[in-house]
């Protein structure tokens, strides 16, 4: 019998970034007794890293904007693989969710007439991102945190969930350990919301921290949930590349939104060289027109640096591969050049992009108001995730299990637009909380078999009980996996390498099952990494398997052996599920026809 504490809630939310906090707040507002589990301390989740802004058609900065334009932009950005219903709900509800933040104490930057200001971002037709300088995510998580702590939510900090507990096909709780002492906790709940974020830690160069090991994806998959769109991993075009210790740290798209331009070593603005057909009518033809767009000329079209992230990332890789990159394997991102157009540009840049200024100054010794930055793609976000019902966010196959934010899927399709993740987590965090509370209120009491708990405890303790000398250890095994994914399932993919990746992942899995971590149960990062590695292996297999299956290039998924977009492949999503024999099963799920009125909107928006 395992030693554990049992905690009962109506709704347990796993993950306390923006989506988890928003879900917990909503569930509590609906009268549920709510528990919130966070892997780190409260307020440290990756939402703090979001810089540029939150996308919502408030039409404060441009009165031509409305939910229909936002909807069409999101669908176009996602290359029409998105769940159109989620894209519709998102575009319609984002403005209210953002306004609500102000009622909870957020202080966003203002327009001259005192409303929330909005900035330009890639793939958004009009300036749409409400923001605070370049620290919007911090403002959001702090607002939700400071509001949330007064809503009667039980917060469990530095607690990691290792398994979902089931009653038949219904999810009824979670098994977890606390970092401090390694004690086990069993959360019994009538509904469970996953809001665990992404999988960026599967790659070597990433903007994600240690926490983003695909926990929610893997927990749900093991519990019988479906994963969808896992081949779509977003490589943000601008991560830092030098010095090596900061490689992968995010450089906000806001730099380009404020007029930053991309140049190769010859000083050429290479983004003008290749405009994708979907965006030809929407993109500036000259640098002069691009600048007019940046400063708000409504007759100008956006500069090509503000094309979608998938496209910009690929163009950067092309420049580097063809020998036109910067000294450390990136390209140049230059915001200092705006001094030609703006008086006192140095103060302007420091005001608009304070944390970028700080980050480059402290970590790279570069003054971005005077010299260009070196940037290159970094693993940033996964569009794929747990397949959910669009309105309720409940898993398509596991009752009582909900997912919101990055670990859920559907809204972004093949590529996410910048700014749409912060609005995603507000809109669908709220919906997940609301429907989870409703599900809990309508459902019967929960039963959890003791054998399930004992099994979860045995599995969690296994790395501690095995011989620590049996393999290279959890950190090095994780490093092997990250190197593998970076090289064989990264920004450019092909059949042979993906097959090699899948074979290697299976081999790593068996080594991980043999590996010991050493040390005790008390705050032992080796043990934690060994447990997280299991989740990373599951999501890595999912990415590689789906990537091998999709024989075309679309959005963030680029195949060197199938370089074109294929119409047939645009008619379905790839869905993964654990088969009875434990293997990963893949199937093609046809996309339901877009509702006629939404089709009309897409047509109108051109």
């Amino acid at each position: 019998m395992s030693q554990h504490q049992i905690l009962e809630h109506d709704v347990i939310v796993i993950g306390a970034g923006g989506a988890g906090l928003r879900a917990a707040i909503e569930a509590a507002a609906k009268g549920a007794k709510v528990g919130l589990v966070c892997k780190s301390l409260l307020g440290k989740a990756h939402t703090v890293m979001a810089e540029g802004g939150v996308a919502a058609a408030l039409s404060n900065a441009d009165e031509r904007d409305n939910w229909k334009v936002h909807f069409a932009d999101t669908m176009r950005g996602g290359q029409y693989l998105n769940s159109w219903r989620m894209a519709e709900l998102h575009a319609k509800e984002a403005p209210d969710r953002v306004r609500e933040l102000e009622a909870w104490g957020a202080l966003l930057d203002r327009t001259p007439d005192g409303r929330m200001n909005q900035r330009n971002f890639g793939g958004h037709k009009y300036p749409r991102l409400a923001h605070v300088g370049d620290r919007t995510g911090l403002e959001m998580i702090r607002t939700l945190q400071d509001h949330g702590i007064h809503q009667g939510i039980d917060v469990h900090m530095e607690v990691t969930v290792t398994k979902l507990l089931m009653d038949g096909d219904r999810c009824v709780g979670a098994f977890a350990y606390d970092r401090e002492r390694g004690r086990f906790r069993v959360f019994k709940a009538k509904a469970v919301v996953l809001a665990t974020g992404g999988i960026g830690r599967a790659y070597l160069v990433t903007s994600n921290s240690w926490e983003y090991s695909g926990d929610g994806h893997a927990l749900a998959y093991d519990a019988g949930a479906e994963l969808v769109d896992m081949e779509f991993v977003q490589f943000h075009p601008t991560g830092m590349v030098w010095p090596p210790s900061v490689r992968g740290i995010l450089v906000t798209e806001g730099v380009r939104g404020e007029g930053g331009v991309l140049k190769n070593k010859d000083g050429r603005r290479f983004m003008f060289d290749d405009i994708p057909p979907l965006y030809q009518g929407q993109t500036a033809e000259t640098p002069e027109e691009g600048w007019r767009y940046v400063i708000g000329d409504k007759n100008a079209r956006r500069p090509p640096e503000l094309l979608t992230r998938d496209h910009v990332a690929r163009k950067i890789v092309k420049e580097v591969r063809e020998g036109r990159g910067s000294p450390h394997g990136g390209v140049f991102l230059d915001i200092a050049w705006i001094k030609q157009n703006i008086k006192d540009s140095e103060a302007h840049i420091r005001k608009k992009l304070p944390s970028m200024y700080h980050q480059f100054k402290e970590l790279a010794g570069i003054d971005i108001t005077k010299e260009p930055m070196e940037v290159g793609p970094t693993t940033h976000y996964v569009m794929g995730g747990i397949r959910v019902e669009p309105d309720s966010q409940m898993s398509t196959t596991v009752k009582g299990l909900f997912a919101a934010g990055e670990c859920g899927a559907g809204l972004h399709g093949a590529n996410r637009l910048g700014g749409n993740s912060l609005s995603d987590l507000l809109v669908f965090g709220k919906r997940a909380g609301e429907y989870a509370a409703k599900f809990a209120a309508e459902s019967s009491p929960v039963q959890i078999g003791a054998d399930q708990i004992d099994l979860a405890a045995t599995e969690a303790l296994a790395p501690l009980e095995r011989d620590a000398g049996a393999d290279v250890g959890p950190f090095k095994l994780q490093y092997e996996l990250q190197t593998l994914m970076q090289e064989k399932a990264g920004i450019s993919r092909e059949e042979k390498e993906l097959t090699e990746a899948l074979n290697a992942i299976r081999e790593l899995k068996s080594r991980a099952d043999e590996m010991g971590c050493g040390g005790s149960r008390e705050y032992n990062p080796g043990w934690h990494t060994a447990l997280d590695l299991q989740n990373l292996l599951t999501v890595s297999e999912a990415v590689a398997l789906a990537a091998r299956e999709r024989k075309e290039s679309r959005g963030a998924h680029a195949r060197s052996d199938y370089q074109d977009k294929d119409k047939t492949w645009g008619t379905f999503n790839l869905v993964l599920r654990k088969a009875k024999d434990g293997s990963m099963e893949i199937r093609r799920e046809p996309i339901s026809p877009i509702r006629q009125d939404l089709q009309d909107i897409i047509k109108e928006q051109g």
Partner: protein
Amino acid sequence: MATTEFRVWRGDSSGGELKSYQVDVGPGYVVLDAIHQIQAEQANDLAVRWNCKAGKCGSCSAEINGSPRLMCMTRVDQLPTDQPITVEPMRTFPTVKDLVTDVSWNYEVKKSIMPFRPTKPDAADGTWRMDQYDVERPQEFRKCIECFLCQDVCHVLRDHHMHAEFAGPRHYIFVAQLEMNPIDTGDRVAHLREELGIGYCNITKCCTKVCPEHITITDNAIIPLKERVVDRAYDPVAKLLGVGKSEPRG
């Protein structure tokens, strides 16, 4: 690649000691990189908190060569190279293990502070109009990443252990951003004086010096708040008229 000696505090609440590790320091290394290298190659169970590694989450606070700093924003090449680099946990908080401390007290203090209470929306669309100039003042304090380095360095907490009577700089800027929010209606002045103990601060400005976000904690937050407390509690005219006594907080 230079080899540098790091002396890292290893132990728990029952005690510990500095242990020596040799680290191959790569270009641009920050202290957190060195700690990660030790963790990956020499001591898998070395306990450390970190998240963003970009100075935005405030998790990796420690005392480096005795100074409270973020490990992710401290370049190794800017520290003296003729002596070992020491890395210790924040000393103002109870030790959990190695570089990890128990900072839960901070979360309890924050919860005791009256939350944001907005006025009714003043615009027809149900929102508020606020001037950029008016939001900039509280925005400075909202840059806080809750690294608690200001709490760590503050002698009222560090040396005098007045955790029960004194909320510390982090929470004074938290109150300041609420009090200076253009649409907040709450009144936290009596609370500042009576429970949050702002009077104990004697303006040594140590907190301002260590703030990795460069928030002017003392001049822009604590002093204006102290002035509000003094105006309210010690105004002789108000005293004569019998008004301005501390009111209940909610």
